[in-house]
């Protein structure tokens, strides 16, 4: 090899060209295997190892024609950073937990959600407790508020954040021992009692209250006053009495009362009747809600411009 190099300087150029062609071929093969999802098990394991165990969960909407250019751009950037991995396209009926568990068994270490806020809560509300690092690539311009909180820019620029792998531990809770809760919970109006950490009871039965439990999003009222604390090991509950808005101020002369705020690790909310509860976008009717902050934390790749 050395002698050949000495003989012909032109060969140097040829050699680098060959190397480049080889690299491109490898990438093409990898891409075709992943895209067709038809590689041998051994091949898959080898490629996953090479790519650091990344898997990419594509929400169904990113497969639309409007997102094609964005997705192409994202895939190109991921290849540039050499962090491309297996692509799994989520369908309406896919259970993300079962899917990720299966991929963990095959060596996946990083699960990157590709989609928007709905994708984010849909996956994490089921799979937050799995032993993987989560990443997020927000696609499109709408419904991407968590990306802002996590400091992740939209579309292909998010690939830089994924490649940088700044990992933070985030709190998450379990609601009624079945669903994970990452971002926010909201009860539009209710009379209730809240038992916090088994030590004190907050009595809110005199009038109706708006109730918001905040972790990754501030409550929907007076949100200009909030600082997010998704890493303090506690959840924050905000309570605001109903009324006192502009209408009741003008008609009844009633002033908006001061909002209340409590921290807790475990809270039992007991409503006087079945009440609408919105937890991470999922609406249900509940008589009581038990919220417990999990001891384990959610490992999430975040950007340096995160809001906490």
């Amino acid at each position, binding site marked *: 090899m050395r002698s050949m190099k000495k003989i012909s300087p032109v060969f140097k150029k040829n050699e680098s060209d060959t190397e480049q062609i080889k690299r491109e071929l490898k990438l093409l093969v990898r891409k075709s295997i992943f895209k067709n999802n038809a590689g041998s098990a051994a091949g898959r394991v080898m490629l996953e190892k090479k790519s650091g165990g990344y898997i990419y969960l594509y929400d169904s909407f990113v497969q639309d024609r409007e997102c094609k250019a964005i997705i192409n751009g994202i895939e190109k950037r991921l290849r540039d950073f050499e962090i491309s991995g297996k692509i799994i396209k989520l369908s309406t009926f896919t259970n993300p937990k079962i899917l990720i568990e299966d991929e963990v068994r095959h060596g996946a270490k990083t699960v990157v959600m590709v989609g928007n*806020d709905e994708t984010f809560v849909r996956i994490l509300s089921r799979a937050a407790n799995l032993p993987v690092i989560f990443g997020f690539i927000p696609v499109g311009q709408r419904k991407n508020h968590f990306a802002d909180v996590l400091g992740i820019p939209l579309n292909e620029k998010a690939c830089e954040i994924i490649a940088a792998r700044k990992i933070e531990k985030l709190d998450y809770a379990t609601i009624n021992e079945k669903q994970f809760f990452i971002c926010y919970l909201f009860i539009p109006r209710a009379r209730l009692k809240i038992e916090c950490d088994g030590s004190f*009871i907050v009595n809110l039965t005199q009038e109706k209250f708006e109730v918001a439990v905040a972790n990754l999003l*501030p409550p929907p009222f007076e949100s200009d006053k*909030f600082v997010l604390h998704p890493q303090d090991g506690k959840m924050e509950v905000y309570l605001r009495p109903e009324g006192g808005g502009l209408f009741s101020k003008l008609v009844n002369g009633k002033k908006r009362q001061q909002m209340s705020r409590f921290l807790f690790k475990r809270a039992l909310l007991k409503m006087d009747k079945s009440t609408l509860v919105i937890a991470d976008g999922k609406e249900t009717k509940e008589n009581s809600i038990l919220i417990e902050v999990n001891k384990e934390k959610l490992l999430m790749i975040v950007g340096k411009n995160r809001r906490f």
Partner: protein
Amino acid sequence: MPNIIANFTSKAYLAANPLSLFSMTEKHLEKGGEEAETIVGSSVKVEGDFVSEGNIIILGQVSGKLKTAQQLRVEEGAKVLADVMADSAIVAGEVRGNMKLANTLELTPTARVYGDVATKTLIVAAGAILHGHAIMDENEKAKGKAGKKVEEYEENIPGV
């Protein structure tokens, strides 16, 4: 999506404040200065052992025990029916119970305190009412850490 409601920005949530999810400006996520960890609003009643590591503001009613490692503010109109332990306190409302402060207790003109008080510095404004013993000890700082039982404090007050 059948399981998760597709309209994440649900109507009920947005009805509360249509700008909430869409105006995540730097302003409201800005890390502010000193922040109250706990606020008990005016129409809220709290019963039991209330322990906090941060500042507490009370505008409503608290009964039981109240402890914080930092500042307590009892606003005008608020009612505290509890033994209080804190680093310092500003009282403008009513407190029925013994108060033990590691640093300062300030009673504003509208303050009404019915109980014994132990603090390092006591500031009483004209018009404030204090019914009880007042002990001012320079060494209170060491004794008055939050988490210490109120009973221990009672043992230290002569005549209690």
